[in-house]
């Protein structure tokens, strides 16, 4: 093995029931480098990582790890850990009902007994070092998702690994937290750890990475030194085609931002739920795309959940198309023509073991009622139609949705709501953790719906994305609406300033 190479994967093949997830993929990781693994959804990134960490068994190919004679035999995540490979997955895979310290040290004790006190001290010390705002004895489930993610990273870092895999670690972190993480990554890099960084954020790749390996459709596109691969080229390699212009999808202004005196499709006054948001006013008109923006935890999701009746609404007046209504639970909203794609796809969106077809028809089926099941043939028809329309990549409509890649799962959930033909669709973080191509498709879809006279509320952590899609932004800070921007105010600086508050910038 060459001097500084610590991991060498060659000709990796893996297929699931005849579908090639990986096809002759090579991957090389050197000591002290941050190596981005890029590709669209279903390109094979997750599969490659899972092969490396022993979650899946490869069908063919070799894996060599520095310090291990011959071929590394990784058959389980435990083997991977023992070989010095640590992983932080996109979806947090810790135990929410244990404490932070227990999560950090679980499964790593030598004997059957645990010295709780020293474990907690050690954990606290590490949390302080990494600047993670929690305590060793805190129950993990009560921490925010961002903190949970950082605990997962702390756990991986502490395992004295040679290879650290970060699978979408930043998708639920805000900017400052991302900065902390990057600092941590650079420290580890200086210590000689090789880091595999899987992300969808291009900015982040160019900020911290040294090399990029691009996968597409389960095959290897190539390995590049970062300086040799400008952004546009990277995107075209990932998509396998030249991209016209990512930033120019909005096209002509919809021109609906100004109050044209028409009756709003949805209007709320002093709406407030049990989730601790301050009462807010909100309206949206036909053909409009607007959005809630703000930092993580600022109450964006809580607002739209209140609109949809997903949380218990405590006060406020709601009008739909000028008529006063009460929305107590989701079905009320659905019957009024409102659809809601939830923020946490895995927890609130998919019904993982059910087929793509059942997931797709679910909302429409519920609206039709308990005694009016959609016939199998009709359901099949709907499924085929939307699989084609949204280009959902699935082996068949029978496949359990849990087996699809994140972006395709998201498309099924979108299809679920499109099938109900809503007048007003709320998309809460529809682009989180999915690839660029799908992100753009989803943004385009939001605009297309608006051009058809529907209303869309679009929420994203990426301000760029919001600016590209929305004609009006409701800005939130500390669980309250603090401003509304439209027209010429819709630019990065202005949005940032409003989010941050009057005193800064």
């Amino acid at each position, binding site marked *: 093995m060459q001097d500084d190479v610590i991991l060498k994967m060659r000709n990796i093949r893996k297929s699931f029931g005849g579908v090639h997830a990986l096809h002759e993929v090579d991957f090389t990781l050197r000591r002290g480098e941050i190596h981005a693994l890029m590709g669209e959804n279903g390109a094979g990134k997750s599969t490659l990582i899972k092969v490396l960490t022993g979650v899946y068994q490869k069908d063919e190919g070799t894996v060599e790890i520095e310090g291990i004679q011959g071929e590394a035999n990784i058959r389980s995540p435990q083997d991977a850990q023992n070989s010095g490979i640590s992983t932080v997955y996109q979806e947090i895979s810790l135990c929410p009902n244990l404490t932070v310290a227990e999560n950090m040290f679980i499964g790593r004790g030598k004997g059957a007994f645990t010295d709780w006190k020293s474990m907690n001290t050690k954990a606290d010390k590490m949390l302080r070092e990494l600047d993670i705002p929690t305590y060793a004895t805190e129950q993990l489930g009560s921490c925010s998702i961002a903190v949970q993610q950082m605990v997962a990273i702390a756990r991986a870092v502490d395992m004295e690994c040679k290879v650290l895999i970060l699978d979408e670690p930043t998708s639920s972190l805000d900017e400052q937290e991302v900065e902390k993480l990057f600092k941590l990554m650079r420290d580890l890099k200086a210590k000689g750890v090789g880091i595999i960084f899987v992300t969808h954020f291009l900015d982040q790749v160019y900020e911290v990475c040294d090399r990029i390996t691009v996968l597409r459709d389960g095959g290897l596109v190539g390995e590049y030194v970062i300086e040799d691969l400008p952004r546009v080229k990277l995107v075209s390699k990932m998509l396998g085609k030249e991209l016209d212009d990512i930033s120019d999808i909005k096209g002509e202004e919809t021109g609906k931002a100004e109050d044209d005196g028409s009756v709003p499709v949805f209007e709320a006054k002093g709406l407030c739920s049990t989730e601790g948001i301050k009462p807010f006013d909100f309206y949206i008109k036909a053909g409009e795309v607007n959005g809630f923006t703000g930092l993580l935890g600022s109450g964006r999701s809580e607002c739209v959940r209140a609109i*949809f009746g*997903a949380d218990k609404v405590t006060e406020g007046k709601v009008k739909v198309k000028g008529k006063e209504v009460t929305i107590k*639970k*989701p*079905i009320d909203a*659905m019957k009024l023509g409102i659809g*809601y794609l*939830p923020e946490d796809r895995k*927890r*609130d*969106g*998919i*019904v*993982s*073991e*059910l087929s793509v077809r*059942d997931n797709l028809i*679910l*909302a429409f*089926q*519920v*609206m039709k*009622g*308990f*005694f*009016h*099941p959609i016939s199998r043939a009709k359901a099949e028809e709907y499924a085929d139609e939307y699989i084609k329309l949204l280009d959902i990549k699935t082996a068949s409509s029978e496949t359990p949705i849990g087996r699809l890649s994140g972006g395709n799962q998201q498309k099924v959930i979108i299809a*679920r709501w499109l099938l109900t033909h809503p007048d007003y669709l709320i998309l809460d973080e529809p682009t989180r953790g999915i690839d660029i191509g799908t992100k753009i498709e989803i943004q385009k879809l939001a605009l297309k719906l608006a051009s058809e006279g529907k209303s869309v509320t679009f929420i994203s952590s990426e301000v760029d994305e919001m600016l590209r899609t929305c004609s009006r932004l409701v800005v939130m800070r500390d669980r309250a609406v603090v401003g509304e921007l439209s027209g010429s105010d819709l630019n990065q600086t202005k949005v940032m300033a409003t989010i941050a508050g009057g005193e800064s910038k």
Partner: protein
Amino acid sequence: MKQKKSFGEIVNVIVHKQIFIPLAALFILVVFNFIADLIVNDGTSFFEITYGMSKDGYHVLSGNLITVIDNASELVLLAIGMTLVTAASGGQDISVGAVIAIAGSVILRIVCGDGSDANTLQAPIILAFFAACIVAMLFGAFNGMLVAYFKIQPMVATLILFTAGRSIAAWINNNELPVMNAPSFGYFGKFIPGIAVPTPVLIAIAGMILIGLVLKFTNLGLYAQSVGINPNSSRLNGINPEVIKLITYVILGFFVAIAGLIKVSRVQSINYSVIAKDIEMDAILAVALGGNPLGGGKFNIWASILGAYVIQMLTTTLFRYNVDATALPAYKAVVVVVLVVLSAPVVRERLNRLFASLKSKNEGKEAA
């Protein structure tokens, strides 16, 4: 153009079907009995069905197979309800045996009236049955409420009635053991004059048809699975997970009442501490044998039903070879362990891999 599937592929498809496990178990039992017939060769066959005169003077079918499908009837009905409960609530109702005792007690209480005359019905059976249905469904609703609204683990929630149910049953009849000797009361557990098939079999079939219709003409199946897999997501799609869970327990209550009617009709009396004893375990086993995840979610009701018949077949087979009634559970346990281990996802995964590697080796040979 459709590709012709090789034999291996067809086998592969069948093996992956959920219903494969109970089918395979049934097949093994059939083969075992077939071979045993040949070896023992005492002139009787396990599979022999005779059409002869019963002691009541009617022409009826009899034989081991008839015994199996007859005695499995209560279990089949319970397995249907238990499958739904398992799917929606991710847990099992262990109080079904006790509630059968309650339902049976209610029926006897009503048909026996003041108990003055054990040979004539004091009230129509249908009335008694309706009363039992209402009572059993109320108890089902009680269980369902604890599970759905108070979020108590199903096994703990139903432990209450599991413990108290038989006392309640005894209390309904003032702790007496009522007897109803009117012949028509026995129709539901034995034979209806002129019909050669035991009535419980017909009732079980009616139960299957009923649930088949319910699953076809309502969304119960989809909702129960959806709620069992992801209640959050179900709620956001307009389903009320609590109501769905509650409904499954009430449906189970209904099937429990029918099973209760069959039970008391068979013996035309009731013994509170013995009636339907341990049947909850067999019902849960039927669900597990059917390959349904006991943690809830996806289900196949027909696999559970088949599982119920397999359990009864096993019991009858063991009885046939003169296994002592007290030793029966131990023998059964051995078989159950084997079946459950074989149907465990981990083991199936391993077996699948084994098949796959064998297949690829074969293909390698062919290619060479």
